[in-house]
């Protein structure tokens, strides 16, 4: 696995149109991103096509990477996750685009944001464990399976507004826990 610094250097050079750096970035990161698209889409051909589109996005958005305040792997995985979930939802029915999430970025982050990445690892699992099991499961399903409020309400057999209130309360608790 390439280091964070190496991946950052690749992305910076991709932003300048360096195709060799693009190949290096692909070699260093494609297995993880393919794992993610495969996990979400659960279909090899579709995950492969999604992976191609993810790297096309990466090539085109690399010049905006520096300003979004994310660690390089977070940026790449978020693009892959969002794109895979977009496809999953399209498969179900026409729904919203999440693709912009990691790409939109115009302003420079502060040093505080740069420091977040290192402290985030595994912390979320501890904080999710502090929630009621079904609420934690709802957060995981939203992130990893692209479940909407409606999907979650259906799965838990509660009204939509109840689901929304539950999950928003859980997110507030999660936010508190993560900021400790």
């Amino acid at each position, binding site marked *: 696995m390439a280091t964070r610094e190496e991946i950052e250097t690749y992305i910076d050079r991709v932003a300048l149109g360096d*195709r060799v750096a*693009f*190949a290096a970035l*692909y070699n260093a990161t*494609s*297995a*993880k991103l*393919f*794992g*993610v698209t495969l996990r979400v889409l659960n279909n090899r051909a*579709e995950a*492969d*096509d999604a*992976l*191609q589109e993810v*790297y*096309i*996005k990466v090539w*085109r958005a690399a010049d905006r990477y520096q300003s*979004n305040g*994310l660690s390089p*792997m977070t940026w790449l995985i*978020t693009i892959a*996750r*969002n794109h895979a*979930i*977009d496809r999953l939802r*399209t498969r179900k029915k*026409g*729904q*919203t*685009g*999440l*693709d912009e*999430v990691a790409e*939109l970025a*115009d*302003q420079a*982050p502060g040093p505080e*944001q740069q420091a*977040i*990445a290192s402290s*985030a*690892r*595994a*912390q*979320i*699992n501890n904080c999710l464990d502090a929630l009621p099991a079904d609420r934690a499961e709802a*957060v995981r399903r*939203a*992130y990893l399976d692209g479940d*909407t*409020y409606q999907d979650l309400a259906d799965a838990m057999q509660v009204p939509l507004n109840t689901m929304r*209130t539950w999950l*928003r*309360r859980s997110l*507030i608790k999660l*936010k*508190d826990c*993560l900021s400790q």
Partner: protein
Amino acid sequence: MTDDVTDDAPLSAAAEYALGLLTPAQARAFEAEMNSDLSLRAELAHWQEHLVTLTDDIAPVAPPKATFDAITSRLFDAPKPRRNWFGWLAGAASAAIVVAAVMIVVIPVPNPTSNDLVAGLVGADIGLRVDATFDPDTNTLLFDRVTGAPAEGRVFEIWLIAGEAAPISLGLLPEAKTGQVQLTAELAVLVDGGIIALSDEPPGGSPTGVATGPVVAVAPFANG
């Protein structure tokens, strides 16, 4: 907030945005808010860094060997128009369509089902890429807006061009990332060998029935 939770840390839309729980309209509103509020951007980055660790347990899987070549070919292969339709467009410019700095790039769209017809629409100068896929079994034309969007207060109108006839409007490109247009049987027979184009139009589309704004992307349909 509609919750009855009294909490020191009220919930912005950042968490729901990162999870993909907002409606498209709510998500656009949050993006607009975020563009003028640096603290929201920081909060979103915070959520994304935490949430991404939920993928830590996902094992890496080597992608197929051909995938990287497919990516570079989709990104870098030289344009190769297959038919003499550029001449048609040039001729049409005097009539109705203003072709302004149109980049014509034919991009293969992988993994279509066997008899689909595909067209990769690219407007390089405005960062637009739209994949159009026609399914002759259902006469539906699917659109996937991979990147790019019309300018503020403008829309993209879809045109089908067959032979020497005037372009036929297929309506507006859906605002959502993906959408579909149902073609009548008469229109459906024109897709094979046809050309698809997007023009930049005022809200509601061309008021005249012919393209009034510049053609931003154009591509022939080809077998996937």
